[in-house]
């Protein structure tokens, strides 16, 4: 048979490897800064650009999409070429993928600091960047699928199955969750409102974890682990079963982020049961990884690459067991909104993704440079300091989460909350916040040691830009279907494989979305709930800009400990005009669902300028710029029109008079504040924010609930 000679593109792999380390350091440093801000509020420097609410999305997006994203591309571009015995389909597409992704990251960093955000977690980027992401992602996918199609290997290896499902699902998730009506270049309103927006967002949020942080890295595990250990993969059967069950079941589990919320009970239950059913498929990946190391455990002791991978796979097993556990109603009631969840995601992020990436980097860089790793000793040092970092981080956050929840729920015998002042429950866990940041610091130290080690490795080796390889040309005839080995058929047909994977990942979303969107009883309306006034709407957009939702929820769950603290539990009908929903996922501060009318305007004014004046010891950063900046009102009409298009029942022609209505309401509030001796004028942003906060949760109090 004739042998083809071709060259692997190593340059693109090197580019992604460098981007991975740079963004990794940046993303983790931002994480460390916000960890410190939680007990040293002065580190927000009283600047709007560096306040917690803006830095937190920067941290999450930087580590997910910049660090882990670049690492994913690095691993796929390296392994795919070798598994297909072919260079990437098109070099130009490869470089559009690379530079496009880096431009998106820089745009993300700039816009987040400027307060340009949609508020939807891990999808905070505004619509022009969303469009760019979609384009770059499709370029990546097209390049990948075409490479697979022109491969010189008859069967597609299991790693490729995972890559394909990653591409397809992320595309679907990103597009569906990002559909919005633009107001201008930097502001849009999502087409979904309230409960529906929450369902779509957490379908996205949960499956971003599944298909951006999990499936591509399982694929990478299936390539790099057997390569590094030089052992055959444990079970081909297990690969098949756990792959298909994983991608099919994962997509359903999103509602477990919304247990005890205003989401209909049936949808919540689907979230629970599909999470439980996910244990085995997830563990299938862990088992297949760990058991591949049978007979190679002596190597694990010697080889830092394998050490990192073993901890990564174990962390994967832990968090995919803990996730379903947290989806049980009782556990969720206890853990949701607390630091427990922060611990959970960091076991996944620091352990699974981080350590797997470090293992791959330690393996790939010497290969690209045709040399050995500069120092195994430093890599071992990195391993231990990183591992300790995770232990410190996670144990502090577990402890803190449990403490918080117990304090929030504790009643006195007379039926009062034991800790009615939320601040008490915050100050109690400050020591844990300090230990957590020590953990984070250790982890970053390890990464810096790795950067040095890899740099020295690069220096001592010689980079091979185009690596020559040989393989026989592909025998174009795909396998016929045989009942004894049914999966062989699809393994030789990339197009059919992609289509089948797409069907598998669409079913869960469709079953959950359609009834929630179409069946009216799922969202009982409440007649006293009316749209926001123009001033409140502008105030809400400031709330979003400042990222208040990163620390404050707007969802009172049906527990006595919450209704005593915050008031009546939240009803689906209260959110029907919320584009986007602002339920939040974490209570670093108290819930704000019903804060309207709880405090006087002047309390809010003083509290925003310096929270410690109204809540001594508060860890909330000050927002002094809100009293200096003038509210942008010229876009009010456009905003009203955009919302009218989405079905918010503002009267016909309201956009024409919206500014007058806004000014009138602002003047009333300003006048009252001036009467209290506060030096403020009606056109300042703080007036709009106060108007919004005072509106929160009041509609339901106005008249009794009427459900239809």
């Amino acid at each position, binding site marked *: 048979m004739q042998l083809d000679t071709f060259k692997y593109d190593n340059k693109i792999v090197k580019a992604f490897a460098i981007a991975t380390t740079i963004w990794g350091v940046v993303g983790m440093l931002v994480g460390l800064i916000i960890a410190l801000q939680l007990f040293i509020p002065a580190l927000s420097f009283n600047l709007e650009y560096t306040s917690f609410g803006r830095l937190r999305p920067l941290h999450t997006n930087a580590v997910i999409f910049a660090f882990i994203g670049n690492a994913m591309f690095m691993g796929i571009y390296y392994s795919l070429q070798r598994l297909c015995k072919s260079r990437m389909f098109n070099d130009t597409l490869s470089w559009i993928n690379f530079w496009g992704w880096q431009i998106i990251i820089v745009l993300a960093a700039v816009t987040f600091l400027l307060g340009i955000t949609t508020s939807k977690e891990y999808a905070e980027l505004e619509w022009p960047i969303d469009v760019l992401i979609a384009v770059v992602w499709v370029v990546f996918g097209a390049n990948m699928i075409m490479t697979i199609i022109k491969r010189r290997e008859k069967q597609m290896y299991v790693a490729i199955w995972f890559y394909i499902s990653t591409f397809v699902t992320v595309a679907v998730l990103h597009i569906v969750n990002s559909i919005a009506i633009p107001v201008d270049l930097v502001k849009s309103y999502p087409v979904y409102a309230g409960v529906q927006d929450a369902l779509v967002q957490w379908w996205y949020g949960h499956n971003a974890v599944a298909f951006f942080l999990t499936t591509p890295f399982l694929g990478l595990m299936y*390539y790099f682990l057997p390569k590094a250990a030089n052992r055959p993969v444990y*079970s081909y059967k297990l690969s098949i079963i756990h792959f298909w*069950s994983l991608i099919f079941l994962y997509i359903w589990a999103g509602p477990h982020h919304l247990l005890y919320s205003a989401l209909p009970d049936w949808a919540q239950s689907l979230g629970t049961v599909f999470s439980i059913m996910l244990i*085995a498929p997830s563990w299938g990946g862990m088992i297949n990884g760990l058991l591949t190391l049978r007979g190679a455990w002596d190597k694990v002791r010697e080889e830092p690459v394998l050490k990192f991978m073993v901890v990564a796979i174990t962390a994967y097993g832990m968090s995919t067991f803990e996730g379903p*556990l947290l989806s049980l109603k009782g556990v969720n009631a206890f853990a949701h909104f607390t630091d427990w969840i922060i611990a959970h995601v960091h076991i996944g992020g620091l352990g699974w993704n981080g350590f797997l990436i470090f293992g791959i980097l330690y393996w790939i860089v010497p290969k690209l440079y045709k040399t050995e790793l500069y120092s195994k000793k430093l890599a071992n040092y990195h391993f231990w300091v990183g591992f300790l970092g995770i*232990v410190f981080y996670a144990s502090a956050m577990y402890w803190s989460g449990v403490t918080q929840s117990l304090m929030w729920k504790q009643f006195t015998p007379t039926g009062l909350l034991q800790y009615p002042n939320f601040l008490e429950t915050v100050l109690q866990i400050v020591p844990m916040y300090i230990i957590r940041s020590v953990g984070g610091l250790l982890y970053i130290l390890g990464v810096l040691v790795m950067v040095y080690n890899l740099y020295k490795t690069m220096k001592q080796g010689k980079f091979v830009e185009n690596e020559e390889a040989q393989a026989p040309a592909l025998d174009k005839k795909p396998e016929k279907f045989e009942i004894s080995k049914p999966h062989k058929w699809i393994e030789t047909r990339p197009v059919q494989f992609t289509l089948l994977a797409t069907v598998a990942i669409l079913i869960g979303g469709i079953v959950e979305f359609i009834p929630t969107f179409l069946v009216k009883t799922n969202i009982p309306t409440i007649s006293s709930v009316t749209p926001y006034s123009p001033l409140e709407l502008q105030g809400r957009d400031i709330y979003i800009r400042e990222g208040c939702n990163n620390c404050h929820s707007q969802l009172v769950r049906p527990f006595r400990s919450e209704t005593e603290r915050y008031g009546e539990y939240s009803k689906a009908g209260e959110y029907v005009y919320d584009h986007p929903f602002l339920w939040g996922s974490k209570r670093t501060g108290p819930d704000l669902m019903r804060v309207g009318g*709880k*405090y*006087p305007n002047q309390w809010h004014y003083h509290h925003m300028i310096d929270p410690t004046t109204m809540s001594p010891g508060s860890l909330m950063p000050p927002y002094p710029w809100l009293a200096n900046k003038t509210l942008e009102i010229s876009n009010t009409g456009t905003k009203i029109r955009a919302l009218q298009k989405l079905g918010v029942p503002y009267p016909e022609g309201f956009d024409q008079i919206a500014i007058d209505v806004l000014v009138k309401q602002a003047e009333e509030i300003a006048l009252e504040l001036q009467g209290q001796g506060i030096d403020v004028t009606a056109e300042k942003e703080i007036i709009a924010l106060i108007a919004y906060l005072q509106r929160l949760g009041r509609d339901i109090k106005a008249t009794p609930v009427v459900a239809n």
Partner: protein
Amino acid sequence: MRNIFKLRIVFALVLLNFSNIFAAGDFDADAYVNIAFLIFLGFLALITFVFLIGHSKSGSEEKAMLATILHKINDAKPVEKEEEILFDHEFDGIRELDNNLPPWWKALFYITIIWSAAYLVYYHVFGSGPSSAEEYANEVRQAEIAIAAYTKDNVLINLSNVTLLTDAGALSKGKIIYDKNCATCHGNYGEGLVGPNLIDPNWIHGGGIKDVYKVVEQGVVEKGMISWKSLLSGKEMQEVSSYVINMKNNEVPAGVVLKPAQGDIIVEPESE
């Protein structure tokens, strides 16, 4: 060996942290949480086990035994015989084995599927499981019963039986409550900030113990005074109200700005 030592230190640290949670004392932890943590500890033990296999000396008896156990529970071909189930294809040098699915893994998968079906049937087909709203109603009902039982045995202070306290002990307790909750709006000395002056002779809502208690208990929400009913017990509201009435007798340092008087002058608040 050194690595095993390090591992032990790490796990000791983790366990120490967990034990602290339980030692936290007077909280009644949810049963679920205890279970969750026990499972979690079990998991940590499992990781230790996996590590120990990795770290035990090759060729040792201990290792051979562990390997046999693993092959048994996983229904796996031993490493020495794996040639029999090695596929002939390879991908960039990666080979694959045709091991069976581990039986315990299959069982786990089946159990979770059966459990899930039962869960949905229980909650949504037969409707035997309570909805979120029903769960909430139950929780409130049970709390009401418990509180009623408690109040039957203990006399609680309320608006109808509250009296003015003048003993130093009660007043100093009142001061602690005041400093923690009231001073941000009414000033450290009652001089008035956002909220009204409390040390002039004027009272907006009356200056008797019942008047003050009522304002504390119910608030004056339209003016920003919140209701403290869910935050303070009856006794605490009695203590802080008594302290507030007594505040005018405290010394106010020079330089503290007094908020202008509001409301009617009540020279002698009636006491009862």
